């Protein structure tokens, strides 16, 4: 008798703990962001203010935010369709040696990015590939495992009968992609694009080594601020700036996915 109500109660407690686990690290960040003075052992900042914000703005955080967003978006736009095509081909089981192909596509996950970036840096310099282009290409490759895996699973669960039915009802190949395949795969595509965006958005190593400092993204600004001392509120503001947009994006993607499922 008592077991039945205990289950939702336990589930509620679990969800609460999970929420706490995710939100708790943000709390000191929020406090630091608006603390002009907060020295040990005070529990709360002694002086509140917006010095962190102004310092962050002065360090070029606004332009870096824009560049990071753009980089994430470009990586997502390139890696998602590529991943979708690879995923579709791999799910169709018509690729000879598909296990080997998959292994190659997955390799960026197991190779240390530092080593890869350092090695490729030389190659890209020799080939006279522009730094920004080099960053984009490498990040697209780094994002491909995520988009491919996501889309392969989606295509494996996708019934091609829907497309055959649409064709027989008079839809051209392209119209079938647009009116049937894309809507049915939209949640998976959004998920894949989100992961690819994160790869571009949060990258540090590739942007630093290949970009050679010419592409100043948010992680670079954040890292340089964090490596200095005495500007904790600026670092807090920069950290929040890099955390909040992906969270907002995730919320949007989740909402869209839920609406699509209904």
């Amino acid at each position, binding site marked *: 008798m008592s077991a039945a109500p205990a289950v939702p109660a336990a589930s509620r407690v679990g969800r609460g703990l999970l929420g706490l686990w995710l939100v708790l690290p943000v709390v000191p960040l929020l406090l630091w962001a608006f603390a002009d003075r907060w020295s040990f052992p005070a529990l709360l900042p002694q002086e509140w203010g917006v010095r962190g914000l102004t310092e962050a703005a002065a360090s070029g955080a606004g332009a870096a935010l824009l560049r990071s967003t753009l980089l994430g978006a470009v990586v997502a736009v390139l890696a998602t369709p590529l991943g979708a095509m690879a995923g579709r081909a791999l799910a169709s089981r018509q690729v000879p040696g598909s296990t080997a192909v998959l292994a190659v596509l997955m390799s960026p996950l197991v190779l240390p990015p530092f080593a890869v970036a350092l090695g490729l840096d030389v190659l890209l310099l020799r080939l006279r590939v522009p730094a920004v282009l080099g960053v984009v290409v490498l990040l697209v490759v780094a994002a491909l495992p995520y988009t491919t895996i996501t889309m392969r699973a989606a295509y494996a669960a996708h019934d091609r009968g829907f497309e055959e039915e*649409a064709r027989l009802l008079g839809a051209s190949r392209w119209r079938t992609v647009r009116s049937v395949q894309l809507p049915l795969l939209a949640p998976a595509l959004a998920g894949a694009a989100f992961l690819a965006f994160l790869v571009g958005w949060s990258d540090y190593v590739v942007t630093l080594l290949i970009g050679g400092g010419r592409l100043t993204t948010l992680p670079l600004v954040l890292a340089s601020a964090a490596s200095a001392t005495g500007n904790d509120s600026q670092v807090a503001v920069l950290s929040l700036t890099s955390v909040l947009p992906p969270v907002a994006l995730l919320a949007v993607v989740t909402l869209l996915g839920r609406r699509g499922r209904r």
Partner: protein
Amino acid sequence: MTGGSLQLTGLTRVHHAGQPPALDDFSLDVPAGSCVAVLGPSGSGKSTVLRLTAGLDEPTAGTVRVDGVDLAGVVPERRGMAMVFQRPLLFPHLTVRDNVAFADRVRGVPRKVARQRAEDFLELVQLGGYGGRPVRALSGGQEQRVALARALAAEPRVLLLDEAFSALDAALREEMHQLLADLRMRLDPTILLVTHDHAEADALADTVAVLDAGRLRQQGQMRSLYARPASLVVSRLLGGRTEVRGVVRDGRHESPLGALDLPEQVPDGPAVLVVRHEAVRVTGSADPAADVVGTVVRARRRGLRALVTVEVVGAGGEATVEAELEPGSDAPTGRPVGLRLPVEARWVVPVEGAAGEPARPPAGASGMRRDRSG
């Protein structure tokens, strides 16, 4: 809307080089406005017939013609076909109405007109007022009705049904058969359907083509197929249960059942006698009009009518005959009975090539016999 005529000629499809063809030199005529069924067990190549007709797969050889026009190289969307699959395949991101309006929409019909027409077709499948619902809110039978409405709304010259009703329970299937008969009266479409169920083929189709292992085995009206199957394969597919091996000599089939007259002249030689269990009459063992006398070894209830297996011991061995009893009558295991096999219900088919095939009856039945004699 009136359907076009469909001619399949010499259709052959080899899925993978080196393998036996899934469909081998298949020809079929579907006159305009008729309904033709392709009947076959699973893996017989019957779905391949539809996929080749619809252009979803390319034939290795052979042609598909609609109203005399060869459709080779014509993409599926330009063939004027619509197909209802066993899975309803309703687009989950569209409402019921927009699913039915899909064909019109991709043809460029304005949304408002397309939706109005969709409502008309939903009315036709008795789902008026369901247009605004999401497809997830439908039951299995309703889903298949919507799929049918969606296919009809495309105004196909040929409507293809791929086991469209097989996933439904018996009562719903019956309803769909009624609905399809109704739609045929109103719209006069040309229908090519495939099924594994001879009762469904009988209920829906004007003529039937029996397919097995990729080859056309027999073609004609269901009545004549039931009475005159061309082979054991066809007889079994049509639910035939009695097979008695013997030899034809001077127009009579000689077997443990005795020498039985045949309705038509057939050449001498080994042959298997087949008799529909519906045609056999079970009488008393002393009935002077009985063609054979045997013992009931198995009785199965099927509603009011029971199906009995009667074992007959005669010259040169034993044989079993299946018979359907009169409604309400009963024949317990072990009872001696007489069987009347009307001459017009007897038919012989060639002995199957597979010589090692075990002859009926199965091992269980002979065990029972030994018990009784001991």
